[in-house]
């Protein structure tokens, strides 16, 4: 269960959000919507623990300070705008690094590349991948994490129709396995029958 209570954050003279609260149950999704510049990414970073809110707190199953847990298993998979791929390493080398970090069996990487449609570019340096292929690699990393909480920042960006369909399918599967997902999205995502809360962010200041 992911809950946020009374989150407040100022950037300079702009109030990005004030006393914001939300909740997402296991098997449920939280969609963050709003115009450009309304603080959606910042809110996701606050949930991930990358940015500190001035007030309020984010809790995961009652425990505070999400993402700073230095023991136990991966709690979350964060997929931001940056794809975290090293341009000089091949796709496979890039993914193998994160597989080893998150304890994903490296023997299953070939299968994962096939599922995400990246088999053809496994041996190519990441700098020659298209933006959509990089996004697919980032989604592959989310799949490897085995984390119950997914934080996705505009995951559909640069994806083709098949890619968006794959994303919807992997999200449905994740939610069906009582995972939780927080998604910043401008376009609608088909999440099937999963309970979905929508968090509408304010107008851009």
């Amino acid at each position: 269960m992911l809950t946020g209570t009374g989150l407040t954050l100022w950037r300079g003279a702009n109030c990005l959000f004030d006393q914001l609260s939300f909740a997402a149950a296991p098997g449920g999704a939280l969609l963050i919507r709003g115009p450009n510049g309304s603080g959606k990414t910042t809110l996701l970073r606050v949930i991930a623990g990358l940015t500190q809110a001035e007030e309020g707190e984010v809790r995961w199953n009652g425990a505070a300070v999400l993402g700073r847990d230095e023991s136990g298993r991966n709690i979350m998979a964060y997929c931001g705008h940056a794809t975290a791929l090293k341009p000089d390493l091949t796709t496979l080398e890039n993914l193998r690094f994160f597989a080893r970090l998150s304890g994903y069996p490296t023997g299953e990487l070939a299968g994962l590349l096939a599922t995400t449609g990246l088999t053809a570019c496994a041996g190519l340096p990441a700098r020659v991948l298209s933006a959509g292929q990089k996004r697919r690699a980032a989604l592959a990393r989310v799949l490897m994490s085995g984390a119950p909480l997914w934080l996705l920042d505009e995951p559909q960006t640069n994806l083709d129709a098949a890619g968006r369909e794959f994303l919807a399918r992997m999200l449905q599967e994740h939610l069906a396995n009582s995972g939780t997902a927080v998604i910043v999205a401008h376009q609608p995502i088909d999440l099937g029958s999963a309970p979905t809360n929508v968090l509408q962010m304010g107008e851009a200041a």
Partner: protein
Amino acid sequence: MNLGLGQLFWVVLQRDLMVAMRRWSDICNPVVFFVLVVSLFPLALSPRAEFLRALAPGVLWIAALLAALLSLNQLFRADIEDGTMEQMLTLPCPLSLVILAKTLAHWLVTGLPVVAVAPMLAITYHLPADAIGVLLLSLLVGTPTLSLLGSIGAALTAGLRQSGVLLALMVGPLMLPVLMLGARATDIALGGDDPTGPLYLLGALLALALSLAPPAAAMAIRISAD
């Protein structure tokens, strides 16, 4: 599921070395700079053997320090820009260990080559063999300390666009004791005395930096990545 600490260290170290191997210019820059600076002094000053010999400890150590400063800027920058650091921050692993692994990789790639070519340059400065040995030892203990101290500054400035001068101003003063002790040890050996005092102090500084710099840099990275 959870990764052992040694394993984590090794995975990060290996990945950073692999990235470095794909970018040869990054490896060559500091060592080329070091060789250039050291070899310019005899040309501009005087090629007399006794003069060069007296100059050698200072010149070699100053050049090594500048080479270390020059390479620090890139230590965390790429990781912050391409999002790798965000991933590290959200993984349940101790950040200071990641930073220690990255700093070690950085030293292996930029510091170790400098240490390796230093004896050859010392010969051109007519340094006697026992003084070269002390120089080598002092560089071997001192340059990792420079990298560790530098990692704090690099972490603090990694989020800034133009950080070169700021970084040098910030960590330069911290590096001065290393410079003084390293050059002094070589100088003492050159004079025929026992250089163990400054060498022990260099070792103490390394131990201090090894234990304090990674947590400090980890805290700074959290600020820079925000």
